[in-house]
């Protein structure tokens, strides 16, 4: 079963404290000023809640929210 973008955005919202309307698909992690600690926490929750393991070193500052969601969906279907 594929993962909905909403379930991923729920985790983003909880772990970063950013409001949903700021988490636009084209926004990069750097633009959103998401700290590395929050990225590690997102990776942890994604694995814990959605069963998808992301390697934190793959989370680059220029990555967009949309690209990260796609990657999580891709990893799940792989």
């Amino acid at each position, binding site marked *: 079963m594929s993962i909905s973008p909403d379930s991923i955005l729920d985790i983003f919202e909880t772990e970063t*404290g950013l409001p949903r309307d700021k988490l636009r698909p084209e926004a990069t992690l750097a633009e959103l000023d998401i700290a590395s*600690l929050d990225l*590690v*926490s997102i*990776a*942890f929750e994604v694995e*814990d809640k959605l069963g998808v393991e992301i390697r934190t070193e793959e989370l680059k500052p220029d990555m967009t929210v949309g690209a990260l969601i796609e990657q999580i969906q891709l990893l799940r279907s792989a």
Partner: protein
Amino acid sequence: MGEAVVLTGMGCISGLGVGVARNWSRTLAGESAIRPIERNGLTGVAAWIATQDKPDPAVWRRFGRLDPLSIFALVAATEAVAQAGLEGHAVLEDRTAILLGCGSGGNATIDEAYERLYAHQSKVHPQTIPSSMISAPASHVAMALGVHGPTFVLGSACASSAHALGEAMHMIRSGRVDVAIAGGTEACLTPGSWTAWSALGVLASDTCRPFSRDRRGMVLGEGAAILVLESEAHARSRGATIFGELVGYGASSDAAHITAPDREGIIRAIRAAYADADVEPTSPALISTHGTGTLLNDASEAQALHAFYGAGLEAHRAVATKSSHGHMIGATGAMEFLLGMVALREGWVPPVLHHLGPDDGCDMVPLALEAEKIGQRLLVSNSFAFGGLNAVLIGRLV
């Protein structure tokens, strides 16, 4: 003696509710937060913070995952600094210290991690360390208020926040800072902590009955109490409202036993506080006792008070507010000093609750068993911790 140290702000959260006004009115009305606990994994009575009183940490979410330990400290510090009128004030930049007392760190975070590890053999949250470290609440308060001066947590079990207030007073006296945000926080009502406290055999199964016959032990609470201390010169120069003065602090170590109190150690701390304040023990005072409701603590404290004050003990009035807000461990000394200062200002002493009648070893303590009007201008606030770490604070109306 150095700079006089005054009190310009107060904030708290406990099982009684959020804010000084609510905590004071409920304490004075003889209400108690002690009731059967409704929290997963815990059975018994405690002075717990109800879900509807739990603050929404969303405003502080940018600081990372917050243990209740930090949330309680943020609630109390925000109230205290707002009352002092110091939000955004330049003094926070480099002439302000934060000293918080804490007994045990972020129990909820640690419990959750151990449950994942031992019960489910799964990974733990990457923020387990920064959320649960005992110094986190001081860091979070500094981040929220923009405080750049000396900031740390100190630990002396049940006396932690009394030591924090006393040491903060000395930082101001010595001129190191103009303002200190000081007090304590504790969030120990979690299954792991509760289990360990229960094993120790000191928790009462019914309620907290300080100095009473048939008392059965202490009752745990949770929350935070934080005060803004300020040099009198600084407070006056900015026209701040002054609620009272912190004039004395005496600290001692029993160097005797890791749990049992020691009469001589208690007396040593009380004597040191009076000497520091340069006040005569005959001056009528409101004595905020440590009064935990355990057999040993109350008897030792009663004997120490009797030995120190002698027949003059009758000139004072004694309260034991743990019967209302429970034993808030690292926050309790500051909570009791705070309520004691409000009592002086209001001219009312709140009642000692759940008292069943005098006990042979404690009957010389002049307890206020009903709310009553008082004219005392002096507060002596006692904290005597496990491990024999004692701190006594003396406050006065200006």
